[in-house]
């Protein structure tokens, strides 16, 4: 699946997107964050304050407990500050 990063999350990770293949057992958005953070030091730091990170699955805002099965794209980003 493709993972997108925006704003300071993108900067801290030094990348805007990547392809990942999480193992079985990575079932939810929260699981995916844990898995990304466990495998990469920059990700561990970027996702340090997990509760403020927002996620979108295939261009739909979701909560951290949402299952990710079947999703093609997941985006992670800080709280939104438009307008």
């Amino acid at each position: 699946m493709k993972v997108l990063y925006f704003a300071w999350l993108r900067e801290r990770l030094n990348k805007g997107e990547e392809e990942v293949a999480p193992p079985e057992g990575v079932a939810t958005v929260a699981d995916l964050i844990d898995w990304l953070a466990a495998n990469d030091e920059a990700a561990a730091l970027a996702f340090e304050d997990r509760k403020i990170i927002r996620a979108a699955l295939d261009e739909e805002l979701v909560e951290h407990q949402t299952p990710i099965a079947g999703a093609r794209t997941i985006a992670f980003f800080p709280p939104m500050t438009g307008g």
Partner: protein
Amino acid sequence: MFVRLQSAPFDPGAEIAGFLKGREDTGALVTFTGTVRSTPGKPVKTLTLEHYPALAQKQIARFATQAMARFGLADIAVIHRFGTMNRGEVIVMVLALAAHRQAAFDGANYLMDWLKTDAPFWKREAGPDGETWVAAKAEDDTARDKWKTGREG
């Protein structure tokens, strides 16, 4: 109804004229125009807006559709810029058209409150001390949440 995301500057007056053209059936247009703010205490040279195009378009169209239905608007439009803009420049404009003023005020207000917190844009300010990401404000969440009482969304 339209939602336009663009990097180019636009003229709010021309947008109003275009939106009102041929609408003799409606009596009230409320617009909100948001601009890049710079004050002596917090000088801003430029503001850069990053966005997630597909989701931004979808979210704003959703809030616009909800505003139309909830307040019985005749029409609504949103123009939101992304990229880098100078202080004083227009960032966003909302135009809400209705038969009477209250619905138009409420529609514009509702749309802006949702857009601030739930449309994927991120502001980065450049000032004399460098660049910083603008932090989200709790009061923006509160402003959005007041619309949740009674009817959802």
